């Protein structure tokens, strides 16, 4: 079944509306970044030959994310694009057949966002502990690794 980009955008808008409230729940601090999660799940590995649609999706998600967060659109773009880039690089080195490989590549792709968030927090003297970031990164890796994505399952209307 083809999932169109517009569906992801609507889903991202819903997440944008709901996620700030979820972040304030008692365990909200440890929840993985919803836009990063959605992007990693939406974009197949390895990426399609033309990366135009994944990049547009990342830019839209970044705009939505920075609407409800202190992070600037540039920081959100950097986080999401770096995640895609890291995962793409790792996917070409590692097979995604094993959970541990998928987990590793997803964890490593979530690291740039964690580092950028820590940097922004320190710029504005906001408390953001390393433990919180580590939980976010690990949960991102776990969730992404659970849902196996293959290039044959085209997300952008390509041939399945």
């Amino acid at each position, binding site marked *: 079944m083809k999932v169109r980009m517009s569906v992801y955008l609507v889903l991202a*808008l819903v997440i*944008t*509306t*709901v*996620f*700030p*409230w979820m*972040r*304030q729940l008692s365990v*909200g*601090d440890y929840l993985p*970044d*919803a836009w990063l999660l959605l992007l990693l799940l939406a974009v197949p590995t390895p990426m399609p030959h033309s*990366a135009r649609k994944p990049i547009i999706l990342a830019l839209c998600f970044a*705009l*939505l*994310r*920075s*609407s*409800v*967060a*202190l*992070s*600037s*659109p*540039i*920081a959100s*773009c*950097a*986080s999401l*694009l*770096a995640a895609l*880039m890291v995962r793409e690089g790792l996917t070409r080195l590692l097979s995604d057949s094993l959970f541990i490989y998928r987990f590793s590549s997803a964890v490593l792709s979530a690291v*740039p966002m964690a*580092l*950028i*968030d820590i*940097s*922004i*927090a320190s*710029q*504005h*003297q*906001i*408390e*953001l502990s390393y433990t919180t970031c580590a939980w976010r990164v690990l949960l991102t890796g776990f969730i992404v690794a659970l849902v196996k994505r293959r290039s044959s399952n085209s997300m952008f209307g390509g041939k399945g």
Partner: protein
Amino acid sequence: MFFLLPGAERNRKKLLTVLAVLSLCVQSCFPLSFVDDAVHAVLGPVMQPITRLAGAWSSLFQQLPQVDKSANTYNSPLISAERQFGHPLDVPGVAWLEVPVLDIDEESGQMKLAAGRNFHLSAGQIVAFADNYLGRISEVEDDIAYVDLFNRAGQRTGIKLLSKTETTRAVCFGRGLSGSAIIDWIEDEKVVEAQATLWWRPRPLDVAHLSKAGLKLGKAVSEGSAARGDYMFVVAHEIPASAEGRVYVAASAIGDSIVAEPIVHHQTAQRIMLGDAVFGNRLLAVASRASFAPAVLSDHSRVCGQVIAWRGNWGWAHLQQPSRWINESVALHDGRVRLHDAGEDQVIYTRGGSGVPRGMLLGESNAGLFTPSANLDVWLAPQSKGVVHQ
């Protein structure tokens, strides 16, 4: 003929993408403010409706105060106390002009005042706070004046020592950061008594009555060792915490006003979302029609936190409990102003600097975070962009 290697075009694109992402990462970690400002100017109007939508959803689950207070001009008790305590004695022929302080730089031994030629200040006028002599105006611009504090390196100031029977003239010599000003010359080489009060002595061209204002520099304290040959008396002195807010300049001729009010921009603001999707509930999104980038957010009379990002007509404020304002807050103690010490329970006020107006109420020093109401205020003191160094 020129041939591209197989895959060269794809590798070139990859390289450009990597470079672009890296430059975005660098901009995120070491931001150039003009780049962020430009992006926010373009995308801010698109982002604000989304923030409002998310804020409306969140507010369904949050217990938010909706109290709608009317915005009144806030009269800070701190400012009133500074005025009451800081005004030197009135003497005939002298008016004391009240001037806000922008910055005290101990390294250069200079104080920067937020008024200048336009307020009829001129070089040579003396600057005081209560009975403390601080220095003389050395340089005047249209809206700024610089004061050479008496302990500025190389600054010579006349002092006098009073005893029951006679008055002894002396001169002190500023040493800047090297230490307190030393008593360099004493009339007839008389002996200075430890803890003797050192009174300010006017120059011949100063208004004669100024000597009756009872201005003093501090107390005489011995330093060094006679055995080493460096025994001397120095002036034990501290600039009062209140003098970071305003000082008084002696004038024998005045303009229309004797009070130079600091410039403070103020505008009402609305809470649009409590909480941030990345950093949690310590952040608050606010919208305002302010034509300036505000520095601080208040729930009318009480400070909620500093505005840390501004995106045209809305931005993010960091909610802070009063104890987080350590070194940036002052307290009233027996009617006098002093820097707030950690651990003491007292009502504290903003110290000023970094664009934050001085004297805004922070609340009890041990109070927790409070949830701001829907109608707020944003403030900016554009002159106090520098941090007060003390």
